[in-house]
Structure formats: C-alpha cells, structure tokens
C-alpha cells in the first residue's frame, strides 16, 4: 500500500533543508572558533579538532540537504503522477460518446 500526504511530507522536506542551513552555520561557527586563547602547545590539537568537526558537521549538513531534496522529489513525483492519472481518466472515452 502506498499512502502519502504531500503537504505533510513537503513540510518535512523543507524542515530538513532548514536543518542543512543550520548545520552549515554550525560549520562556519566551528571554522571561526577562536584559537588564539589556547597556549602554543594546545593550539595544534584544538585546530585539528575544529577542522575535523567542521568536516563532520559538513557531512551531516550534506545528508540533511539530501534528505530534504529527496522528500521534495517524492512529493513532486506523487503530485505529477496523480495529475497524469487524473488526466488519463479525463481523456478516457469510457462511454464511446466523446464525453
């Protein structure tokens, strides 16, 4: 059985895209975290840590974007399919009288 509420699923997709934007800001935040506060011996480890986490969070953002895009695609496909079916029903001449 396939059942879908395109409005609800579309909203979920938009939420994931927003999430991607949030995580993108998180990446920027990580990249701009102040390193100057740490002493010379700690700074390399702190820098490597933030660079790795920038990459990790960037990966989460990309996954969120992908989920959002695919949800949108599901809705688009569903709506288009529904329209095609409806169009076909409309063009079917079931009575053979042209109506």
């Amino acid at each position, binding site marked *: *059985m*396939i*059942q*879908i*509420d395109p409005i*609800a*699923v579309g909203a*979920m997709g938009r*939420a*994931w895209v927003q*999430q991607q934007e*949030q*995580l993108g*800001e*998180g990446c920027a*935040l*990580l*990249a*701009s*975290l*102040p*390193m*100057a*506060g*740490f*002493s*010379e*011996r*700690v700074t*390399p*480890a*702190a*820098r*490597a*840590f933030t*660079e*790795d*986490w*920038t*990459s*990790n*969070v*960037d990966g*989460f953002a990309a*996954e*969120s974007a992908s*989920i959002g895009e*695919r*949800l949108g695609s*599901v809705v688009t496909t569903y709506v288009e399919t529904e329209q095609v079916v409806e169009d076909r029903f409309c063009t079917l001449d079931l009575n053979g009288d042209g109506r």
Partner: protein
Amino acid sequence: MSGTAAFTIQVPALPELRLVGEWDTGQVRDFADGLVDVAARLVDVGDLDAGRTTPEWVGEDADRYQAEITALAGRTEPSAEALRGVSLEVDAHAEALDGLQWRRDELKHRHTVLGREIDELRLALDSSDEGDRAWLERWSQSLAGRAQVLDQDATRWREDLAAEESAMAQVFASLRTMEQVRRHVAGQPDLASEALAGLDPDGDAEDNHLWWAALSPAQQRAVITSAPEVIGNLDGLPAAARGEANRARMNGDIERWQNLLDRGVSDPDTRADIEQRLDNALAARDALENLGERADPVTGDPVVAHLYTYDPGAFGGDGGVAISIGDLDTADNVAVAVPGLTSTMQSIGEHSGAAANLYDASRSMHPDSSTAVLAWIDYDAPSGNPFTSDSAGVVREDLAREGGARLADTLDGLRASRPDDPANLTAIGHSYGAATLAHTLSSHDVDVDAAVVIGAPGMGPADTVADLDVPEGRFYVGRNSEDFVADLGDKGWVGKGSVGGIGLGRDPAEDDFGAIRFQAEDPGSGLIEMHTNYYDPNTESLWNMGQIVTGHHDDLMLADPVTDPWYRGSVDPEEDATIEQPRTDQEVR
C-alpha cells in the same frame, strides 16, 4: 660573595623563573560556548528524527526515509553529546589556566620582592663590619631558603602547566572521528587516548622513540589515524609513521581549505592566510606526486617518499616541510639536505628534485648500499626579497641560529629513531643552509658521520673546523670558483662579519679553516647557475657528494683550498682547473 669587611657572605642567586606560556581564558571560554552552540544544532537533527514521519505517509519510500534519518540521528546525537563533553573540558581548562595565571602572578611577585631583598643584602654588606656578621648571615640564609623554595615552586608550576596542556590536547585528540565518538558514548576506552596518555609532552627524541616502540600495533594505528597532528612531526618516531600521519593531514587540509575557499571567506586576511597554507600544502603534494613517478635507478622499483615534516602555517606563512627520497627507516646511508635563501615550503618541489638527484647518484654510483636523502626546509630561510620582513636575514645570522637548533632536533630525531641500526648520517648545507648547518654543528651536540657545505657564504660562529662537532677529517666543502655567494665569507684579514652583526663568517674553502675541499666546478654558465648547480647530474659536485654520502671518503676529487695572502686578494686555484664531468649515473669501481 660580597662584603668589604673581614668576612664574606654568600649572596644567594635570584632563580630564573621561566614561567613561559601565553593564553586568553576569555577566548578559551568563547571556544567552549561555540561548541555548545554547534551541539544544539546537532540536537535539532535528533528532534527532526524524533518527529519521524507523518502517519499519512506509508510505503517503501517512507520506510527508507525512516531508516535513513534514524541512522543520521544515531550519529548526530552522540556527536552533540561529545561536543558538550569537550565543551565542559575546555571550560575546566580555562579555569585551570586562570589558576595557573594567579600562581604565576604570585611567583613573579615573590621573585620581585626576593630580588629587591638580595639587592638590599648586597648594599648592607658593602657597608657592614664584623659586628653585623651574625645577622647578615641569618638574612642571607633566609634569602637562600626562599630562593630555593621559589625555584621549586616555579618548576612545579611549569610541570602543572605542561600536564594541563597535555590533558587538554588529549581531549581534543580523543574525540575527533565518528569512530571515537561511538566508542566514547559506548563507554569503551579509546586506543589512541590510552596511547597518548603515555607521551611526555616535554620528552626528547629518545623518549618519543621509547614511547612509540612500547605501543601495540593497534595503538600505533589508532594514533596515526586519530591524532596525526600529534605525531606527524614528532622527532624520534619512524619516518613511515610520520609520513602516513602527515599525508593524512595534508590531504585533509587541502580538502578543507578548498571547500572553505569555494564557499567564500569574507575576511580578506583570513582568506589570504588560507590561500597561502593551501598553496603550501599543494606544493608538498605536488612534490610527493613527482617523486612517486621516479624509479630507483638500480632496481627500477618506485622510490619510497615520506612526508617527514609538514607544517604549512609555520614561519609566518612560509611553511615548514621535509620530504625523504628513500627509506629513512632502513637505508644504510642517510643524508639531510638543507637549502638556503628564498627557500619556503613552496620550494619543496625544486629542493626535493635536487635531493632526488643525490639519491640517484648515490644509488647508481654504489648500488650495493641503500640511501635516503631528506630534503629539509623546516626553518625560516631568508626570503632574499628586500621588501619582506626577513630579508635582513640574508646577510645576518639570526635565522641561521634558529634554524640550526631546529636542524639539530631533526638530526637527533633521525638518530633516536634507529638506536639499534644507525645509518651513516651526513648533513649537507647549501648557501645560507651552510651557515645554518654551521650553527647546528657548533652550538649543538649532534652525532653526524660527515658534513658538507656547498656554496657557503660563511660558517657562522665557527672560525675553523675544530669548532664543528664533526668526526676528524669528515668536514667537506664544495665551492665553485665562480660562485659569487661562496665568495662572501671572511678571508684572511678581511672580517665582513665584524661590523654590526652583518656577514655570515669565515669562508670554509679557505686554507685556514681546515675543511677538506672537493672539486665543484660546473661546465655551464650564468652567474646564478654557478651558485645553484651543485646538485646537477654529472657534475664534480654531485659526484663527490655521492661518494661522501655513501661513505667513500678515500676516493674524492679533491681541490686545493682558497688562499688569502696579506699582500693581495684571495686566490682560488680552482679558477684555472680543468672542469671534469664525472658520470653520476654509473657505478664507481
């Protein structure tokens, strides 16, 4: 001792505190707050997951969606927990640093007061007589006791700071990858953290070697994977481990910095900084790729190349790097080649090419022994550009002195990494790199089997070969008679280094210096080439260096030294010598 009376009293020395360390706990706390902010964004992903799906959506797509977001949340939620945990540790670090700062201020205050009292004691002694002796002695003893306690407290402070810094660095290193996060959340010990806990942050190359050797293969693997920045440049470790760690760092840097630049960096200074570090990393990658295409001239196998040192942000952006051609961990002969002025990380392609020429020559001339050459640019070489801040270093020794200490550390590290299988180790300095090597050999206790300078503008603090820590008869100089840079060194009565600190010291090719001079004339032409062609194939210079590096000291093409009689200018007998072109691609029999 001090005093004008008939007695003397020991005036205690004021201890040197050496309370070195700069930090800003306000910024450290900002860092911690930033992590909490990022963690909150990851929690939002979990909240989306908790919302799951709408009951009006059923089917295969819905099932796949649920599986995917559950898997994502399975990583974001532990990540949020990990970042919050690190944030707490960073806050605790700031607290500890505040405490250390308070203790440092207190120690400095005691130091000032003690110094003042010691001065007062000296004054009192100057105007004392026998009747003052008893109380002055008591005062002196009291001050000596306080000086001792102050010295002990300063030592403890340094140890506490080192322990605090090490602990913080380990926290960062222990939670960088998703695998580490998974183990952390599951309560499993992190192999890398366990291993890193035993690393002494103040240890020397031998300590580092012992630490590494005591780790299990699994721990070594974990450290290379999760803490490459800790061990990539750690002297005393095997070149293979350093090279793997540094390649991972380099590749990660290139990917991150390219992504950042692609996204856009609004601050121009930050952008310029990232661009420069990226260019440095790309230069290292290009050099490694070029070396990867070379084959050993004897076996035809690809040459081993390790990224031995990788520090793209060092020296004000010039960067530090060292790449080996050949296996430093096993080679019979190891040479460290130090270039001179204008060398930066972006010169590594050219310099590693020169080092590869020496590798090829050594292998071709003596195929029965293995050789590795380390192209080393891990010091702040003068730019030679009059418009940059380090241009003065071309004619002054400051940068050579600092570079000399760094080179000594590298040589110590190479020695420490192979205690049971020492290589025949040769250090080679070209141009300003020769002055740098001179500082290494004259101011540090290093263990090289031979040393070579080529195109040397002077020998820094060394007046003769006796000032250099090199086995007798194993210090060599190659000087093209038409090399204008090699003519800058002091000769005879002329002391170019005697005014205002300008100059680089004695000419090592001069007879008074006492080096063994080998032929290094070049058949080519061009002013610059006479200074830069020492590593060219089929030259006297490369042939002789191939002999020295492989330990064939009795079979060199020797040259007479430069002389500088008092009644005329210097005389170089090589000016009229026949220039030979020995084959460096053939076995020497």
